């Protein structure tokens, strides 16, 4: 047997209907759950201002999605003024430059970059020097490329070890 369920009349849809006590309760339950969300996931909406079913359903949708963990957090961009490549190097960057220089000084003089690190004072200068030496260590620095094995052999301690190895092989 097939029972025909009549369609509601067109005029029955009314999203501007005032919310019932049931929906009011649902809103207050949703609001309670919202308070436990991290502050930047909260809508900031006062539920007392929600008067219609349309407004209520929109609020309930937002909170339900957030409770399901479905949310996109907008991450603000830093202002353009944040960029300052002429900023003086921090102690950390000074140390990083010194570490790269420590490695470079183990290379034969003709393979070195010729950079005087005492003149490297800014972040941009540090990046230029560090980039140059990193590229050389990766063997992608063009003409000044120094094969790592050969470069290591220039370190006095390592040179002795390398020499011993070579002598052994011979």
């Amino acid at each position, binding site marked *: 047997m097939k029972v025909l369920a009549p369609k509601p009349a067109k005029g029955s849809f009314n999203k501007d209907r005032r919310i019932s006590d049931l929906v009011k309760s649902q809103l207050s339950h949703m609001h309670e759950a919202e308070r436990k969300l991290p502050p930047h996931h909260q809508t900031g909406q006062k539920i007392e201002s929600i008067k219609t079913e349309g407004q209520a359903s929109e609020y309930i949708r937002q909170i339900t999605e957030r409770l*399901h963990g479905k949310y996109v957090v907008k991450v603000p961009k830093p202002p353009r003024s944040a960029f300052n490549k002429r900023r003086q190097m921090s102690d950390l960057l000074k140390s990083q430059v010194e570490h790269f220089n*420590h490695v470079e000084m183990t290379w034969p003089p003709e393979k070195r970059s010729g950079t005087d690190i005492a003149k490297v004072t800014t972040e941009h200068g540090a990046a230029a020097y560090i980039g140059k030496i990193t590229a050389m260590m990766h063997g992608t620095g063009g003409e000044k490329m120094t094969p790592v094995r050969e470069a290591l052999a220039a370190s006095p301690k390592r040179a002795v070890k390398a020499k011993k190895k070579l002598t052994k092989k011979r």
Partner: protein
Amino acid sequence: MPPGIDALEHIVVLMMENRSFDHMLGGLTVQNAQIDGLSGSEENPDSTGALIPVQALADFQGQLDPDPNHHFAAVDQQIFNGSTANPRQPSMQGFINSYFQQRKDTKHSRKIMYYFTPDRLPVLTTLATEFAVFNRWFSSIPGPTICNRAFAHYGTSFGRVTMDPFYAHPAFKSIYQRLGAAKRTAKIYYYDVPSSTMEVVNLLQDQPQFFGTYKQFLEDCKSGVLPDYSFIEPNYTDHDVDGEPQLATDQHPDHNMQAGERFIATIYNAIHDNPKLWASTALLIVYDEHGGIYDHVPPPACLSDGFVAQPKDTGTGFPFNFDRLGVRVPAVLISPWVPKGLVVSPLNPDGTIDNPRIFEHASIPGTVTNFFLPDFDKNNQRSEREKKVETFLDLLSLNQMRDVDLAFDTD
């Protein structure tokens, strides 16, 4: 074994720069009392003797200039405030006095007590509240970057407490060497060539094959070919590449904090956007040390790694036996197998923690080695401290993967 561990194929660690737990996450206590952050009543004396409370006034840039001192002697002052008692108890009362030494400006020195409200750092605080946040993750040494990062790579700093270049002791292999020798895969992804790595003397010099770039990391995530273990270094400098400005993303003072937030977001998105990778990866975000910025939790004693730093290096007039950890730092573990909003070692209402689990940077190679190389200790190639350190993969404890549809919009 929990299914999250069964599914685990990749561990990724992102190590940021120089921010304390309270400075970054201390404001979360207001919404979750289990998080051991700030009540607002924490204070330090300034150079006039006035007690200055913590304040939610931290800004993205421009406040912490000059860079707060965080060499060993300065951190000793921050923790002990010049106490000569025997034994000394860490009071965490010397932060303003330490910062005052640099500019002799009382008003400016109080800024070391500033912290961020959670809405200012939406990425880190969302991840901390969505996944697992550690109440007790400390830097390994009460000192600066290089020796603290060494603990993340080697499980020891070979007796170093300074920023000077040093050579690794051949008895202790780096986590990359260990994995490489076992035919596993590992990579350090630095941001780009001009930013490069902090691990130059021992690893880049001898083993450049372990290195890749951030761009490559994003591509590896997309194509699902991430190594077993990845360690990511942020951009350490403002510099140009082909005329395009590259903002430092490390959050080291005085670099812009929002640039670091966006960097963290892109790392998370890269893993999350590949469903197979997301299900099989644990991402740890951690800071190398506190950068001289206030935290209220006294660092605990720890097992020595067998080395001793001499007074000429500590600058305190005393040797250091590596028997106390450094200041607490933010640490967040991210995986769909971690319960939502987990606080590791939660704070009780009376302010105590039951049997706190103490983590430090040696927990990184400790965890990675235990997971990928369970038979490694037959060769005795790591420190006793690392062998006994707290590890974190048990936090992937869910029986079913969570549906986490969190994404960060960085457009």
